[in-house]
């Protein structure tokens, strides 16, 4: 069940109708929890138990920490919770990765490590990170524990963002939960606008770009170097529109229900530095990594070399979070390296102010770096990545020439449109809906989506994480 399926809309409409009929907040929370469980069960009901385990352990740990007066007890409880979350994540996501990695070493000793057929539970990377952030915030007294197991369960399982984020913070969400579901005209209109925006990004732009990306990454040998370049750049834009489109849809649905979720993307391809890029791309993950990994490692407080080390380790683990493969680790490591080098070689903090003469080139440079590192992100294997790079370097330039002009058009629109939106400070989410053009433009957006969405819709890319 995803946002584009009939079952989802039946579920959402049922929730909306029920919450109009049932007003007590506690009952509305139960409805939300039931809907979230049903939503998750449609993906794979077998992992509902896993979600329940994570929820129950963390809730009672937080209650225990609240009641404990002994710092050692609090630390122990924190360690138990984090260990359990990481153990679950490690087993389901990384067991085969680690056994395959160490198998070659172990085989020298005549030992072969087992490979298990482990299914990856949908959304596990997202809800385990949320649970870790919750217990750490409770430990550091940055937030109060959830008032009840019900509240915490709704926080963990909240269906609009359960399978692919954004990664929520309890301090932001739990207070909103106290008013239950609020169906207000403003929220519904804004939610519909956000949802439409996300839909446009996903099924018009991202799925169109998928046509060239899938072909180029499937058989790079078949295509010319220029075509492969277009495919590589298209993937960077595809993943942005796919993921930010999903995030917008999640935010839109939450908004309809009366909840504000954190913005996850903010024109990342207008960034003028690597640091700024990570402040604009997958914001909920990058801030999580900053707050719960980079800062605990020491941040930039322990000298220059330790700062570079912290940056690289944080990004390496950030890469690993995306997938159990050395491709992702390498991707994260490259970004960490870029951040470290940028910090080392720029005396002052890179300016975010827009200068006509230089900002375009910086933004283009950042985009190209992101596109090239994404080759590791997208390639199914290192060998395939190598073949893509040999095409990009014009080592093997021959092949079918395919100028997929919709991709070129979307790249141009994204780049120029993003820069203009940043320069003119345009924020579609705050457009005044009392203006007479608002609803016609919203209707036109949905009509455009209906007319121009591709028939071959690909699954959301971030569901695999």
């Amino acid at each position: 069940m995803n946002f584009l399926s009939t079952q989802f809309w039946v579920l959402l409409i049922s929730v909306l109708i029920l919450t109009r009929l049932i007003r007590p907040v506690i009952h509305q929370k139960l409805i939300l929890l039931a809907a979230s469980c049903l939503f998750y069960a449609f993906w794979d009901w077998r992992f509902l138990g896993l979600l329940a385990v994570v929820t129950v352990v963390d809730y009672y740990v937080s209650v225990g920490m609240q009641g404990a007066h002994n710092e050692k007890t609090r630390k122990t409880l924190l360690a138990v919770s984090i260990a359990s979350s990481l153990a679950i994540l490690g087993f389901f996501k990384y067991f085969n990765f680690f056994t395959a990695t160490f198998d070659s070493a172990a085989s020298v000793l005549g030992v072969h490590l087992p490979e298990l057929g482990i299914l990856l539970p949908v959304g596990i990377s997202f809800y385990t990170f949320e649970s870790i952030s919750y217990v750490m915030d409770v430990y550091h007294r940055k937030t109060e524990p959830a008032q009840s197991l019900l509240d915490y369960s709704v926080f963990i399982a909240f269906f609009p963002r359960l399978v692919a984020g954004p990664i929520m913070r309890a301090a932001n969400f739990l207070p909103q939960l106290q008013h239950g579901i609020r169906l207000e005209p403003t929220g519904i209109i804004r939610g519909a606008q956000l949802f439409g925006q996300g839909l446009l990004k996903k099924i018009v732009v991202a799925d169109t770009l998928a046509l060239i990306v899938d072909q180029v990454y499937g058989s790079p040998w078949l295509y010319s170097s220029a075509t492969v370049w277009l495919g590589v750049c298209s993937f960077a834009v595809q993943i942005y529109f796919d993921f930010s489109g999903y995030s917008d849809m999640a935010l839109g649905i939450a908004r309809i229900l009366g909840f504000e979720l954190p913005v996850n993307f903010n024109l990342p391809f207008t960034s003028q530095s690597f640091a700024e890029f990570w402040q604009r791309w997958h914001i909920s993950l990058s801030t999580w990594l900053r707050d719960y990994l980079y800062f605990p490692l020491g941040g930039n407080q322990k000298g220059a070399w330790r700062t570079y080390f912290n940056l690289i380790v944080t990004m390496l683990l950030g890469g690993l979070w995306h997938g159990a493969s050395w491709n992702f680790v390498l991707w994260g490591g490259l970004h960490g390296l870029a951040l470290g080098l940028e910090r080392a070689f720029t005396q002052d903090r890179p300016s975010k102010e827009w200068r006509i003469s230089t900002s375009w080139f910086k933004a283009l440079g950042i985009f190209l770096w992101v596109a090239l590192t994404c080759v590791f992100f997208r390639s199914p294997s290192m060998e395939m990545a190598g073949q893509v790079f040999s095409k990009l370097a014009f080592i093997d330039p021959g092949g079918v020439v395919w100028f997929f002009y919709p991709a070129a058009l979307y790249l141009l629109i994204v780049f120029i449109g993003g820069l203009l939106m940043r320069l003119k400070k345009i924020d579609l989410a705050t457009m005044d809906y009392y203006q007479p053009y608002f609803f016609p433009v919203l209707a036109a957006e949905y009509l455009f989506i209906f007319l121009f969405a591709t028939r071959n819709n690909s699954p959301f890319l971030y569901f695999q994480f």
Partner: protein
Amino acid sequence: MGTRVIGDSLVPVEKNKFNRAYWLRFFLCSLLLLVTFEVGIRLFVVRNPRFEADAGFGGLVPRAGSTRLFGTEGFGVTSYFEHGEIATPYRDGVSVVVLGDSMTAAHQVPNDEKFVSIAEQGLRDEGAVVDLHNLGRPLQVISDIVYLAPSIIETYSPKVVIVQVSYSSFSLSLDSSMTNYYTLKDGPPPKLVHNSNSENLQMENIISSSGLLTMLQNRFYQIFVLSRLDRLAGREVDQFGRTRRGLVSDKQIVFLVRSVVSAYPDARIAFLVIPSSPEIRPGENSNISWNSTEDAELIGLISSVEGVEILHPLSGFQKLYEEQGILPRGFSDSAPNKGHLNKFGHQVIAKALVEFLLRILK
């Protein structure tokens, strides 16, 4: 901001924002957006020809002199002669009729890049005064071709009838919702029966008059009809809903081929089987396979009927790829190796058609 008396006080009250001025501007904005959509679609995406009723040639056909614009897979403008015949360079000479589906109608390329037009010019260049009549129409199936025979013979008296086919040309003849006039009823013996579905000409005219309405109709078709085809065939369809082998039996195919031969008794019949897209297996190494067992099976069945010739320019497609690195299908706004023939694919088919016609019309 207005005011209102509440008790003893004058209280400021926000004016109603949704007043007459708002609704007037709302209506104008909506109208402007609809007009923008309509103009944009007509200029860049799709524009229908004007239609007229022509019962003998399939009900509603494009009027002589009108044009069709097609831009979602390639970009082409198609112009028409009478009876919905797609215009070709010449209108005199030995009459040869070319029937087929969207591969022959080829709205994705301009008139002069369609294989029928290229072949007609090629024949003239070789000194053969042949008039090729392009009667291709999207989704035209074998049973339609049989139904149209009396009108085609009366109007064109063809010496040769070229029938461009794929598996769907046969399998969709079984589906009464997909054919216009005849449906194949399975035996014993199988026979073609008149389809009781009738076209709603009025609605067709209304929809076809607007680019936006046409696009909406196409989308509904993609969402509901093609999805139904997908389910029927167990996903054995390509992106244009062309069905694969499993839906039509050998006996049904042979019967339909014989029906065509019987329908055009005075003409030489040739079936043009456009080679399937080569299979490109994803992976690190070059892995492209041109041989299609489905094509081979279809050709075998058609050839089993006496008096029928086969055109299958596979070697031309292979040569196009091996020598020039060009695949015969796909456009810059679709995907290589998928969908309809591009201009290079049409050139290969035209060359094969010229060689064939020069041989049999000598």
